[in-house]
């Protein structure tokens, strides 16, 4: 089978962030500002990415606005011909900078919210950010740019999902992405206080379906069942080295957000290698391509071409073996690990969580 070209590049341009969200999926080991890729490196990489076939660039972090050169990055990506999405907390953005970024070629802005209510939102973020985000939403709507609100949901806010959707409606975005916390990095550390209960999840799906019908054509709502509660694992990144690539602030190129947790792997860096070589030939991208590496029950499973055995990083994080079937799968011999994580959720238990710090 011939190797497809990547369709999207997730560029984590920094790990610096003014928020400290407890559900952050950034790695526990973060890159310091002094070790981040330079503007020139990023601009070269954007050109290489487009030549390789990449269509979408997702600028994320950390908080991409923490980079003083963000406007140059957007300009360079636009010149390269990429569709540019800014994934942001909005902290560090006011009308003038927003206008500059849009003029530089920004296509879409995705603004995160932690809750509909100020107090819990600021508690989850570990920072007073909520009021600014509301004000910024009004500013964004004065410009001609596609606008998505991203709402991260978990046990601490799912009980008022209906209120959160109504709140988002008042911000008038084109889209609402309801993202269940994914258990990597800081979110995994805080999993016992974030994991929703099954009744919360069932209620959420009912509420979302009703809202999707009511708001059709006005605000598009995306929401998927979080993988710990799904029957089968997610098709992580569309398959290892199949559709997406991620560049960390240090310049390392990863097939999946959390790939650096897998021991014994070396990830090539755009400072030393071309993106084309990394995508097509680097050992890390080859490692879990195709089906050779698959264990049973994946190897003989009809779904292997749909979900690729799930997430390699999650398999490692939960079982200690990156070649195992993702334990989220109900067919995995290790599925009890996911079931017991669900049972750790005691509504009303005291919350004692770790905030994501800033890289030193």
């Amino acid at each position, binding site marked *: 089978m011939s190797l497809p070209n990547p*369709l999207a590049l997730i560029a984590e341009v920094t790990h610096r962030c003014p928020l400290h969200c407890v559900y952050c999926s950034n790695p526990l080991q973060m890159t310091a500002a002094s070790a981040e890729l330079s503007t020139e490196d990023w601009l070269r990489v954007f050109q290489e990415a487009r030549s390789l076939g990449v269509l*979408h660039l997702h600028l994320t972090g950390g908080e991409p606005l923490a980079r003083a050169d963000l406007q140059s990055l957007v300009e360079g990506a636009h010149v390269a011909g990429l569709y540019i999405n800014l994934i942001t907390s909005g902290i560090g953005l006011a009308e003038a900078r927003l206008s500059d970024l849009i003029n530089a070629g920004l296509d879409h802005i995705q603004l995160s919210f932690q809750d509909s209510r100020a107090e819990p939102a600021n508690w989850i973020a570990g920072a007073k950010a909520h009021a600014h985000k509301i004000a910024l939403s009004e500013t964004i709507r004065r410009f001609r740019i596609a606008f998505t609100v991203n709402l991260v949901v978990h046990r601490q806010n799912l009980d008022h999902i209906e209120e959160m959707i109504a709140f988002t409606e008042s911000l008038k975005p084109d889209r609402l992405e309801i993202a269940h916390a994914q258990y990597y990095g800081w979110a995994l550390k805080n999993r016992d206080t974030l994991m929703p209960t099954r009744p919360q999840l069932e209620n959420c799906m009912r509420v979302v379906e009703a809202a999707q019908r009511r708001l059709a*054509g006005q605000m598009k709502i995306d929401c998927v069942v979080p993988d710990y509660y799904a029957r089968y694992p997610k098709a992580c990144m569309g398959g290892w080295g199949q559709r997406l690539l991620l560049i960390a602030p240090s310049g390392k190129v990863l097939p999946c957000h959390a790939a650096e947790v897998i021991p014994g792997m070396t990830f090539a860096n755009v400072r030393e290698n071309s993106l084309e070589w990394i995508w097509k030939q680097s050992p890390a991208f080859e490692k879990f391509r195709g089906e050779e590496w698959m264990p049973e029950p994946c190897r003989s499973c009809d779904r292997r071409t749909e979900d690729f055995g799930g997430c390699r990083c999650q398999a490692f994080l939960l079982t200690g073996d990156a070649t195992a079937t993702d334990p989220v799968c109900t067919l995995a011999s290790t599925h009890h690990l996911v079931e017991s994580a669900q049972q750790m959720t005691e509504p009303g238990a005291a919350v004692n969580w770790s905030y994501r710090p800033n890289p030193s």
Partner: protein
Amino acid sequence: MPGPLSSSQPRLATGCRWGNEGEERVVLFPEGMIRVQGTGQTILELCDGQRTLEDIVGELAVRFNKADAAKIREDVGSFLESLQQKRVVDY
């Protein structure tokens, strides 16, 4: 939101634009892209925010000379309505 009127002037929604994937034309939007080929591509290329739905149906009737205009109107209307719900088209 109901389907387009004959006087509607459909266009790609803000944040949606044409791009190329190899030789293919695609519509890029925030969460991804749609490969549009054949009639779908022809319709979307006519959605320039200037032509009305009536104009578009008229042009398509000329291009596909034996098709009946009422049927084209119905097909194009539901095609655009489904893309409007994805927030890819506005009218």
